[in-house]
Each structure stands twice: as C-alpha cells, then as structure tokens.
C-alpha cells in the first residue's frame, strides 16, 4: 500500500474524468459504483428535501389550533406523503444506495460491486418506483391519505390513489432487494487478499447485516402491498372479517417488514458512527468483535419484534408478552454499540470536527430514541402513549436524530474524498449547533405533548396543547435553518473549497489509502491488507 505520508496533491480528476461517455449518459448508464453512489445520493437527497418541506408545512399547520394553512384532507395527504417519501424514497435506500455504493467496494479492496449492471438496474428501479409514487399524487383520487402504513380497512376503501402509490413502493422494494443481493455477494466474494472477516470495517459489517434484512424481509412488504391492490380491485376479503378475513393479519404482514426496515434505516448509520469515532478519537475502536456481532444480532432480533406496533390492536395477550420480551432483547445489542463507542472515546485524543459532532449527537439522540422505545415496548406503558405524539417524537429521535444525523456525518466524512475538496469547518459547526438545538426543541416537545395525551395524525387539538405546539414549530424552523446552512456550506466546499489530500482525517481504512478523488478502478494494483481497519500504527498513521 502507498504510505500515507507521501500523498500526492488532490486535483487529478480520478473517476470524474474517465468515462468514455458524455453528458448525462455518463451518469445514468454508468456501472461504476461511485457514479451510481452519487446518483443515489442526489436522488435520495432531493426526496429528503421535498419531505422536509412537507414536514415543515405540517408543523406550521399544527402551530395553532384550527385551520392555519391547510384543510384536514390536505393535512392527511401531506403527512402520508411526508412519511412515504421519507421512509421509502430517502432513508431505506439512502445509506445502502449512496454511501454503501460509494465506499463499501473500496473499503473491502474491490474494484467494483459483484454485479455492476444489477447495481445500475437497482437505481433505475428506484427511480421508476419514485416516478410511480409521484404520479399517484396527481392522478386518480389524489394523494393517498392513509398514513405511510396503508392500514386496512381504510386503505381498501378510501377514494384516494392508494393503489398506484403502493405499486410504486412495491417497485422500490425490488430495488432494495437487488441492492441487498449485490452487497451480500460483493462482501462474500470480492474482498481483497488479507481482508478477512475480522478486518472488515464496521461500516461494511453493518451493510452486510442490513443487506440480509433487505433480502429476507422486503419480499413480505411486496406481497402485502400486492394484497392491498387485490383487495381494492378484486375484493378478495383477505382482511375483511365479514368474509372470513382478518384486519390484524394486514398489520402483522406490514410490520414483519416495516419493523426490520427500521434497522435497514439505522444499522448503516451505526456503521458510519463506528468509522467516524475511532478516526476522530485517534484510537482503535473498543470492542470491534462485539460491535460487528451486535449488527448481526440487531438484524436477527429486530426482525422478531414487529408485534410491538400492535399492542392496542386486539392482538392476543400471549403475543403481547412474547413481542414485548423480544423488544427488550433488541436493546442489548444496541446498548453494546453505545457502550463500545463511549469506551472508544475514553482517553482518546478527540478532535471535535463536524463528522465527530454528528457522531456524538447520534449517540445521545439515538440513546434517547432507544430508551423511549422501551416505554413503547412495555405493554403497560404503551397503552397510555400508543398513537400519541410521543410515538412521533420517539420515532424521529431514532430515525432523524439517529440515522439522518449519521447520514449528515457521512456526508461530511466521505464526500470530500470523492470531490477532492472540503467544506469550511466553522459554518459546519454552527449548522450542527442549530440542528441539534432545533431538533431537540421540535421532537422532545412532541414527546411531552404525547405524554399529555395529544394524539398523532390529528388535524386539530385542544387549546391546552397550543403553547407546546408553537414551541415545537419554532424548533422546526431552527432545525431547518441549520439544515440549509449545512447544505450550502457543504456543497460550496465540495465545489469551491480547500483541496484535500488522500487522508484528511487520518483514518486507517482502505478508502483513505487511494488518491483523492478515487480512480475509476479504485486501486492501481490489488491491495494486500495486513492490518485491521482501526489499527492506526499498522497503517503508519501517527
């Protein structure tokens, strides 16, 4: 491997120049994992920003009791589309598609993924599914108003365009399965010489665990959504008690996928944190094996807890007992990760740059999200807060405070590598402070509102909830102002910022040993791995 000290200056175009195609075709028909990664990145970021706008509109509507800016039907549609876009078009494909594609093959010492064409096909499937979902908003009976869960019997009976929307999600699901298959095969078959399972970067371990969940759970979502379409067009009665059906069966089927999907969202984020913390604490990660194992344990145990979404749905007491117990079991591997990250920080030489700040925020916010999850996982307390704003706050702590903050951390950590330039540090820190403060004001307030009894998905509320709703809405403005500053600073830096060398953070994984930006084939000669991913001494990093 090339010694880190003798880095050439950044500026040769790497994979940006070497295409053989011109214009947009150099991107949308490219089979280079880095180009597909960037295609995914900009696609998911676009949908994220659209959903953020919808989320802000929801908060403005809830700023005061009664009508503020939209009517109740529009409100129902907006929270449905906010959820569908955030879940299915941003955060589920987000990590795997963008940073998984950009970084994983390089981290294992490969030239590309195992099936490059299938990789491109997965992006096309994603775009096709997204196009169908967007079409569903403007055709038929208008945007779906069921919530992102498409619960029966309402989803069977509503006149809005549910069928087309679930068909779009069905297609996006195929994209997810294809990416999962590709990543499992790549990690098994394309590791460089010396890249043993015990030397895999923890981001790769997290992608591997996630890929298995994608492969095994997503087909169940596909069939569930197909059954909604069958119900709407054929009246099969599968979920209709009057015809021998069972509406609870829909909830089982939906959550068999959709709870593991939460781990599709969060596991790669945990992988990102496991990369950032040792790099910015200048210390090998504490408990490598246990962090790797806990990714698999979360994927396995997390696939068996779906019933905790249904404690108040009329499910049997036996099932409530079993699913409640298993929900508490998932807390164990999650806690293993948190304790190991904190132990890594202990006596580290900590550098508080933007990626590290996002990682630290992740640990705190994810811990709050996880612990409030136990309140929902215990049947007795769940009955009090089920379907309240408490659930909305909890969910956003895990997914926004956890997965999305990790995504922002990954943007600051890895994007400079692929652009050859970096953002300005001070505005990045200010943006982080604004987002951290705004986030907590927005979502902690929601949890308090839920504890006081304000239901979720309601257009209007009692006057006693007004002050806290106003606070939450003001928090959302602070959050969004931080987000805008972060994006402007990051992208300005990527295109016009200070050039960087090949290893600006002093990290020890393979992607930092190749030129910046990476060449098309990643490695000039096949690397031979002789040390672990966080062995700074072995990598020759002071």
């Amino acid at each position, binding site marked *: 491997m090339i010694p880190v000290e003798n880095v050439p200056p950044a500026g040769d175009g790497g994979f940006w120049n070497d295409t053989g195609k011109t214009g947009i075709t150099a991107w949308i028909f490219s089979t280079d994992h880095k180009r597909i990664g960037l295609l995914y990145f900009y696609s998911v970021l676009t949908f994220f920003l659209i959903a953020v706008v919808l989320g802000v509109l929801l908060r403005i509507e809830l700023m005061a009791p009664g009508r503020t800016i939209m009517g109740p039907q529009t409100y129902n549609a907006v929270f449905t589309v906010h959820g569908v876009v955030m879940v299915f078009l941003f955060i589920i494909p987000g990590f795997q598609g963008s940073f998984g594609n950009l970084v994983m093959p390089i981290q294992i010492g490969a030239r590309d993924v195992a099936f490059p064409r299938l990789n491109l096909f997965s992006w096309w499937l994603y775009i096709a599914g997204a196009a169908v979902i967007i079409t569903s908003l403007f055709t038929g009976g208008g945007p779906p108003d069921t919530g992102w869960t498409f619960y029966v019997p309402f989803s069977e009976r509503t006149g809005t365009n549910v069928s087309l929307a679930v068909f779009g999600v069905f297609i996006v699901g195929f994209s997810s399965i294809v990416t999962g298959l590709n990543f499992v095969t790549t990690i098994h078959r394309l590791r460089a010489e010396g890249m043993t399972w015990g030397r895999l970067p923890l981001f790769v371990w997290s992608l591997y665990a996630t890929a298995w969940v994608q*492969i*095994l759970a997503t087909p*169940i979502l596909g069939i569930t959504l197909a059954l909604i379409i069958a119900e709407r067009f054929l009246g099969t009665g599968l979920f209709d008690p009057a015809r021998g059906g*069972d509406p*609870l*069966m829909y909830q*089982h089927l939906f959550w*068999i996928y959709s709870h593991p999907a939460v781990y599709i969202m969060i596991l790669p984020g945990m992988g990102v944190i496991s990369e950032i913390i040792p790099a910015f604490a200048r210390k090998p990660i504490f408990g490598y094996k246990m962090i790797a194992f806990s990714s698999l344990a979360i994927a396995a145990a997390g*696939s*068996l807890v779906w*019933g905790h979404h*249904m404690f108040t749905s*009329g*499910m*049997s*007491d*036996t*099932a409530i007992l*079993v*699913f409640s117990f298993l929900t508490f079991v998932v807390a164990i591997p999650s806690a293993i990760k948190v304790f190991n990250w904190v132990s890594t920080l202990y006596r580290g030489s900590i550098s508080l740059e933007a990626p590290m700040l996002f990682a630290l925020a992740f640990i705190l916010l994810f811990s709050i999200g996880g612990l409030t999850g136990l309140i929902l996982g215990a049947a007795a307390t769940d009955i009090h807060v089920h379907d309240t704003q408490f659930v909305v706050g909890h969910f956003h702590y895990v997914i926004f405070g956890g997965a999305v903050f990790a995504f922002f951390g990954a943007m600051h950590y890895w994007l400079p590598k692929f652009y050859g330039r970096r953002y300005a540090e001070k505005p990045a820190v200010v943006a982080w402070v604004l987002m951290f403060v705004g986030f907590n004001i927005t979502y902690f307030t929601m949890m308090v509102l839920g504890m006081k009894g304000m239901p979720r998905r309601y257009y209007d509320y009692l006057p006693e909830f007004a002050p806290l709703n106003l606070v939450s809405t003001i928090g959302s403005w602070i959050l969004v102002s931080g987000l805008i500053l972060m994006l402007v600073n990051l992208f300005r830096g990527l295109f016009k910022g200070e050039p960087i060398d090949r290893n600006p953070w002093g990290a020890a994984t393979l992607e930092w040993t190749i030129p910046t930006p990476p060449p098309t084939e990643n490695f000039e000669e096949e690397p031979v791995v002789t040390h672990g991913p966080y062995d700074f001494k072995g990598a020759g990093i002071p």
Partner: protein
Amino acid sequence: MSEQQHIVSYGKLTAIWLGLLALTALTVWVARHNVGIGHVWGSLAIAVVKGGLVIAFFMHMKYEGRLLRWLLFFALSVLAIFIGFTFFDVLYR
C-alpha cells in the same frame, strides 16, 4: 454452483404442472369444507408441497449445488419463523 445446464423433459414438466393443478383443486376443496384446524394446516401443507415442486423443478433447485440449497433453506426458515410468530397471536386470541 454448477454452470452446466440441466434439461428437464417436457413430459416431466407437464406431469408436475398437472400435479400442481390437482393440488390447487385440493386447496379449493379444503377452503370450501369445514375441516376444523385442518383448514389452516391443510392449506399450508398443500401450499408447501406446491411451492416445493415449483422450486425443485421449475426453478431447478433440485439440480443446484449445496450452497444455494442452504441459502434457500435459510430463507425458508426465516419465513417459517415469521409465520410461526404470528400464531402467538392467532392461536391465543
């Protein structure tokens, strides 16, 4: 994984197809008659046999190597666990 192509005769494929049709008829019969708990277990058993035939012959798993068989077994085991766990609800409701 074997790269060799395995040709299955039309006669064999037709016989399996007819078998699948017969099992479909049996599924319909079970659905229309009150056979108690056998209603669910019988239907599931028929579905398993039908799925097994499709996987073994139409999807060529019978002629594949051990790795793919194990992967299929793993996936089916996960599916069985998913279905089994729903019975914590259905059987005790």
